């Protein structure tokens, strides 16, 4: 319990700083960006099949890759390198793997110092033949064999076929480190490539190696990651530095490319990591991991130290060397820092009062348990509500839509608005869920921000409740009807309208949170009227840019709808035309009601939809 906050803080910070290091490592991959462009057709495919309401649909900054795509890319990279450097494909793949599949990096390093690269990677320029003798002794089993029973890497160190097989097997079963296999001779570093694996390893080992080789292309490449959904075999290629991290995999799972947690826009990764750790801190597993392991400072995989010295080397491919005590790089230890054991960072940290801070945080955590429960319940409820909505959505697509089409004598193409409503509900539940994590970490002393945030969240939430209710309950009536209902077209207008209104509420909320609620800051915070005005001002500005996109989108996707209003007009009628004072009054009412324990979302939604909303649609 106590260390968990420290731990998460530390993680979040580290993750950022490490990413920085990582990304600043090499800047030259413009050529790879070009390659990415070639694959754009995959985007289009996936976009058509998964019709999700994405915020950045028009400018996808990622590509979903299936196994065939990955293999094809891998082949292309290998071909490219092997042609440019005039080396074999095997040598090219060893080089690419060593330089994390970055073609430009391979080229740069190679042309800067070919000899050094060859030495580091283990590529011999002039292969050494096997010893010229009738019989040779295998360096592993010590048996004599005729020369034709022996094999060697380019270095010529002879080992028998059986021993090679065993050597490869133990390396392959040890994990992806087998991709960097070297000659068994301890004094030799000649690389053992996939050609030798294919010629000598057991069939199942060959398959495993192939698997690791494919995985390496995704896992060692800083631009690609596997989709984290269970059982999903797609990977995502992301254009780093291109805005929102949310990606929709072809398996329909959406996740954050940066932290690979479930998509959590507008909440940042650090908050999400803290929140998830907090939620799972109670579980047995997490307790054990926290108590018995430390995350590798570089790759973050938890490491259990069960024996041995403080000098820890992470398992390949990370291989980061660090000190178990202070988690600093091992290279910083030794004479210069007064020896590992002094770990003077610890002393320094203690002097700076870091540990007192931790103590304070622990105390605060205790006090905030109740507060936490409040946010957690709402987070979890929206999570389960989203799951339910997803199930309802698939039920709708699989069964109900056809039934409804029969009963109401409407072609299914005319019922698309229902699916859109459900997709919007699913997306909104996700956003709403994460705003509770956001709310939990919003500092309590930032009164104005809190109020503004809670107002926006309340607006969005009540809108969503209204939409969810309409899609769930009211639709049921039309599903149970005997024949076509007269007012079905009205229902269509209403549901489509609610969908659009709710989308706008949520876009507003997302935008405000992504700006860090900066509208409040810029207006000197405390004045209530001022903060509510800034809401109007800020959103209308953003609407200007977004309005166009929304309008063109709705005209294309809603050609067959009877509604001809634009969503931005609706929004205008709803919020910005209301005098600033009125908006805050509403928020005050909500606050009072919350204090007395009255349900607000519903009433707020009622006021809004039955008052102004009707005016706007008729």
């Amino acid at each position: 319990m106590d260390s968990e906050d420290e731990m998460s803080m530390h993680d979040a910070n580290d993750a950022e700083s490490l990413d920085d290091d990582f990304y600043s490592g090499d800047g030259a991959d413009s050529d790879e960006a070009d390659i990415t462009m070639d694959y754009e057709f995959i985007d289009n495919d996936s976009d058509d099949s998964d019709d999700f309401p994405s915020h950045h649909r028009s400018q996808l900054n990622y590509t979903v890759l299936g196994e065939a795509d990955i293999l094809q890319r891998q082949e292309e990279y290998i071909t490219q390198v092997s042609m440019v450097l005039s080396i074999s494909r095997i040598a090219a793949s060893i080089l690419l793997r060593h330089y994390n599949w970055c073609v430009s990096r391979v080229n740069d390093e190679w042309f800067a110092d070919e000899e050094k690269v060859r030495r580091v990677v283990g590529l011999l320029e002039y292969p050494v033949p096997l010893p010229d003798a009738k019989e040779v002794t295998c360096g592993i089993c010590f048996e004599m064999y005729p020369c034709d029973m022996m094999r060697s890497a380019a270095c010529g160190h002879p080992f028998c076929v059986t021993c090679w097989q065993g050597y490869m097997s133990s390396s392959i079963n040890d994990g992806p480190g087998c991709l960097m296999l070297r000659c068994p001779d301890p004094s030799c570093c000649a690389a053992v490539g996939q050609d030798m694996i294919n010629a000598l390893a057991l069939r199942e080992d060959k398959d495993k190696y192939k698997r690791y080789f494919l995985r390496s292309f995704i896992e060692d490449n800083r631009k690609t990651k596997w989709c984290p959904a269970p059982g999903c075999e797609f990977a995502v290629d992301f254009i780093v530095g291109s805005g929102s991290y949310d990606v929709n995999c072809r398996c329909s799972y959406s996740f954050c490319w940066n932290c690979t947690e479930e998509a959590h826009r507008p909440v940042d990764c650090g908050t999400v990591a803290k929140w998830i750790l907090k939620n799972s801190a109670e579980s047995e597993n997490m307790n054990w991991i926290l108590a018995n392991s430390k995350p590798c400072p570089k790759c973050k995989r938890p490491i259990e130290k069960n024996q041995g010295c403080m000098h820890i080397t992470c398992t390949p491919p990370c291989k980061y060397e660090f000190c178990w005590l202070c988690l600093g790089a091992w290279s910083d230890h030794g004479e210069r820092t007064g020896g590992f054991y002094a770990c003077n960072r610890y002393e320094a940290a203690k002097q700076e009062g870091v540990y007192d801070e931790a103590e304070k945080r622990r105390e605060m955590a205790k006090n905030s348990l109740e507060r936490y429960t409040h946010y957690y319940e709402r987070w979890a409820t929206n999570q389960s509500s989203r799951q339910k909505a997803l199930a309802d959505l698939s039920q709708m697509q699989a069964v109900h839509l056809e039934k409804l089409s029969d009963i109401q004598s409407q072609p299914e193409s005319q019922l698309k608005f229902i699916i859109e409503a459900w997709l919007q509900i699913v997306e909104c539940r996700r956003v709403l869920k994460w705003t509770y994590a956001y709310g939990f970490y919003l500092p309590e002393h930032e009164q104005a921000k809190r109020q503004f945030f809670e107002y926006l969240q309340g607006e969005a939430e009540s809108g969503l409740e209204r939409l969810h209710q309409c899609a769930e309950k009211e639709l049921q009536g039309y599903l149970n009807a005997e024949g076509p209902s007269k007012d079905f077209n009205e229902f269509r207008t209403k549901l489509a309208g609610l969908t659009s209104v709710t989308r706008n509420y949520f876009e507003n909320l997302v935008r405000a949170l992504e700006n860090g609620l900066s509208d409040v800051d810029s207006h000197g915070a405390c004045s209530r009227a001022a903060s509510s005005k800034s809401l109007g001002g800020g959103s209308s500005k953003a609407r200007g840019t977004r309005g166009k996109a929304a309008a063109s989108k709705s005209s294309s996707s809603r050609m067959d709808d009877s509604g001809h209003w634009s969503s931005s007009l609706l929004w205008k009628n709803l919020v910005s035309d209301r005098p600033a004072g009125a908006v805050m009054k509403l928020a005050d009412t909500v606050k009072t009601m919350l204090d007395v324990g009255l349900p607000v979302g519903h009433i707020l939604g009622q006021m809004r939809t039955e008052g102004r909303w009707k005016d706007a649609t008729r």
Partner: protein
Amino acid sequence: MATNSNLPRRIIKETQRLLSEPAPGISASPSEENMRYFNVMILGPAQSPYEGGVFKLELFLPEEYPMAPPKVRFLTKIYHPNIDKLGRICLDILKDKWSPALQIRTVLLSIQALLSAPNPDDPLSENIAKHWKSNEVEAVETAKEWTRVYATGA
């Protein structure tokens, strides 16, 4: 014994060579019950704090040997920054730097070399390493004392 009957040829050959041409200052003989278990003795190298001592070790060849490294441990108490109080040894070739082309002989020679050249920068026993770095003369004295008390005459 059943375990001994299907002993790989390599282990038999290594054992024969260890017995017929032992490395200087090192003896290793297999146990009669289990040919994969070796009783090892290493003489403290000259000009080291361990000079004059006889150190007993145990060495075991796991099923996967030579694909996996042998397991080695000091049985005699020793004051050394890379060896802990249970006799476990911090040596790269016993872990990630193992290669099947290494042998019992090379492993034991490496351990002997480790006695000649302690490496307090990559320590296993924190306190001893600290001692070694803060006051090497005194630490060496302790090592000599331990050698005298635990590694002679027994």
